[in-house]
């Protein structure tokens, strides 16, 4: 009797005292059900608050074929409402499993109509749907999301964590049958919806730029076209596009080649656009002034590399302004040889070549610039005229932003602010500027670049009636990936510039990639910049274009 009592008592102590908490926890875990509350993904807005991406609640209609009585009759009724062929629906309704998705991304009202038919075996599920109201406009910047709702490109990827938010949970007690115990404990941890991201992009400008680039690519021979527009003083990106965008609403069906943001991930050799760097350096270092005269032949040979000017000519007495306005390769190389490779590389890097700008987008390329000690002789005479190093279309714009902004380069940014779920707005700080050239040199460069655009320069086609425009054309041979040589690689034609030249507001770079060098990029600049100036209500400065002495 005593032994039995001891055993029972011992067991009691063991159960209640020692293992008690574990059993209680197991019991409560058995009763507790936990459901995940999905967090709504945040919005992506343009500079004016127009939504470029947002999430709404759509519906998915599914069928359990084992419960469908008459597949043909059901398919006939559903076909009209779901917009799917009858035979396809019949196949699905007769499938040998218990879950067939009949239609996705439906308006809730349409799904409700389908459910009102009361067909047994047809069910509806809530499906978060990412909507991009602007379609292909800015798609390469905004990016897209995958089937699981996570960001796979662009801002959607870079700000995925902020946009996603934090899913919540609701846990409650259920009885054996699964019914909720009304008086049972219930704990809700509500979902925190995702924050929103406001871009510096203006949807209208973006649309116009995209249209102009697409028009270039529609000619059948232009393989690629890219453009970037920056605010001259803040470095903010007003628009950024690559021709042939895609519709992020149906990203999974898009041509994969169109998904990337070429303006930051693709690289090109800018050609004569880079002469602005060479001359900025030479003026800053006191090697030349705009009115210095250089007797310039039409070719220069260093080692066994010969570089010619675009058109044959007898030796001409070009001013330095004339060398830039006429885009003389020989004149520029002559000045660069006085500058030296080391200083040229210094200035290239100061202008941002060879390092990523740090823009808030995934997949940015830093460009390619090898240290000057490794330059071959051919490279050392090609770099000053924009060959032998590579940059992105964005970096090309950034170089001209530096000149337009009095010599201070502001690394370009594309996110204006982020707003957390609780409404806290975080304005993006403007990155610290980098003083590349003096204000005086920048003003001199703006003056010289204005000589390029208009009468006497190479870019008459980029001039805008009533406005003073500064800029530079470029043409570069494109390396042929097949042979690692330039033969058969085609060309890049480029243009970078800003307006108004005497009170810069906007900077733009354009690149066209073609099998020939016959189509200049200047007109694209002209068309888009004309729109930007009118759209942003930038009045002409009312001061006439100065006279330039190009040849003496």
């Amino acid at each position, binding site marked *: 009797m005593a032994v039995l009592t001891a055993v029972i008592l011992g067991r009691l102590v063991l159960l209640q005292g020692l293992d008690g908490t574990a059993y209680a926890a197991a019991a409560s875990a058995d009763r507790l059900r936990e459901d995940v509350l999905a967090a709504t993904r945040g919005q992506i807005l343009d500079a004016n608050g127009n939504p470029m991406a947002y999430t709404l609640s759509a519906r998915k209609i599914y069928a359990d074929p084992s419960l469908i009585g008459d597949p043909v009759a059901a398919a006939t009724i559903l076909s009209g409402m779901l917009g799917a062929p009858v035979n396809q629906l019949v196949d699905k309704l007769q499938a040998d499993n218990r879950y067939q998705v009949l239609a996705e991304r439906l308006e*809730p009202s349409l799904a409700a109509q389908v459910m009102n038919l009361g067909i047994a075996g047809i069910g509806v599920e809530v499906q978060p749907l990412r909507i991009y109201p602007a379609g292909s*406009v800015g798609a390469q910047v905004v990016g897209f999301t995958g089937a699981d709702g996570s960001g796979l490109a662009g801002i959607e990827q870079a700000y995925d964590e902020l946009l996603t938010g934090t899913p919540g949970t609701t846990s409650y007690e259920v009885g054996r049958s699964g019914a909720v115990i009304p008086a049972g404990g219930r704990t809700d941890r509500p979902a925190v919806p995702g924050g929103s991201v406001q871009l510096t992009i203006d949807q209208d400008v973006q649309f116009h730029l995209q249209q102009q680039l697409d028009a270039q690519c529609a000619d059948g021979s232009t393989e690629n076209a890219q453009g970037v527009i920056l605010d001259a003083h803040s470095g903010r990106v007003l628009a950024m596009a690559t021709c042939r965008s895609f519709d992020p609403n149906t990203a999974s069906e898009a041509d994969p080649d169109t998904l990337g943001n070429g303006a930051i991930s693709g690289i090109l050799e800018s050609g004569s656009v880079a002469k602005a760097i060479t001359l900025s350096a030479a003026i800053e270092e006191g090697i030349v002034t705009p009115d210095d005269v250089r007797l310039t032949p039409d070719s220069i040979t260093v080692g066994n590399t010969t570089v010619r000017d675009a058109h044959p000519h007898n030796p001409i007495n070009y001013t330095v302004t004339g060398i830039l306005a006429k885009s003389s390769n020989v004149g520029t190389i002559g000045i660069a040889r006085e500058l030296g490779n080391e200083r040229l590389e210094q200035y290239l890097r100061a202008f941002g070549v060879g390092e990523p700008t740090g823009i808030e987008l995934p997949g940015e390329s830093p460009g390619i610039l090898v240290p000057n000690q490794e330059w071959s002789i051919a490279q050392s005479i090609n770099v000053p005229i924009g060959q032998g190093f590579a940059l992105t279309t964005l970096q090309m714009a950034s170089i001209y932003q530096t000149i337009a902004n009095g010599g201070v380069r502001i690394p370009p940014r594309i996110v204006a602010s982020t707003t957390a779920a609780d409404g806290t707005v975080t304005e993006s700080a403007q990155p610290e500027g980098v003083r590349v050239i003096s204000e005086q040199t920048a003003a001199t460069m703006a003056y010289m670049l204005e000589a390029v655009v208009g009468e006497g320069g190479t870019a008459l086609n980029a001039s805008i009636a*009533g406005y003073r425009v500064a800029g530079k054309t470029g043409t570069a041979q494109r390396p042929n990936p097949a042979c690692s040589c330039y033969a058969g690689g085609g060309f890049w034609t480029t243009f970078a510039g800003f307006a108004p030249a005497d009170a810069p507001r906007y900077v733009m770079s354009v690149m066209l990639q073609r099998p020939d060098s016959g189509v200049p990029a200047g007109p694209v600049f002209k068309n888009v910049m004309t729109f930007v100036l009118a759209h942003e209500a930038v009045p002409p400065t009312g001061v006439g274009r100065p006279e330039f002495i190009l040849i003496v």
Partner: protein
Amino acid sequence: MAASVSVETIRAEPSRSRATPRTHRPALRLLPAPTPSLRRGPFIALVLTLVIIGTVGLLVLNTVIAADSFRVEQLVQRNAELALAEQELQRQVAEGLSPEALAEAARELGMVPAGQPAFVIVGPDGAIVIQGTPVPAGVR
């Protein structure tokens, strides 16, 4: 019964307390048993009233709660419907506001992109300067 017990108890007591002299003991007699109260009627009425009020009150409360819960359900449903309607309307607005849709709508109305504007600059002294040359729409 209770009365008789108490009488016995009282009677038995003196035998135990020897200190008390016999002569001082007061005369004892039996009290009549308490007569049952004749005022039961109002009490029953009170209890009955309370019971009825309670029952009816409970019924009314239950009905009100049930009616309210129906109303809550209706409102929740209506709220959900309105949220969906709003969502669809906002989607239409957002799509209508997109540059592509606007451009298409404008084209359908026969509109063309504006030409270059001129700017009227009013100086501090009221002098007017016109900057730029206006270009008619459709001329590029």
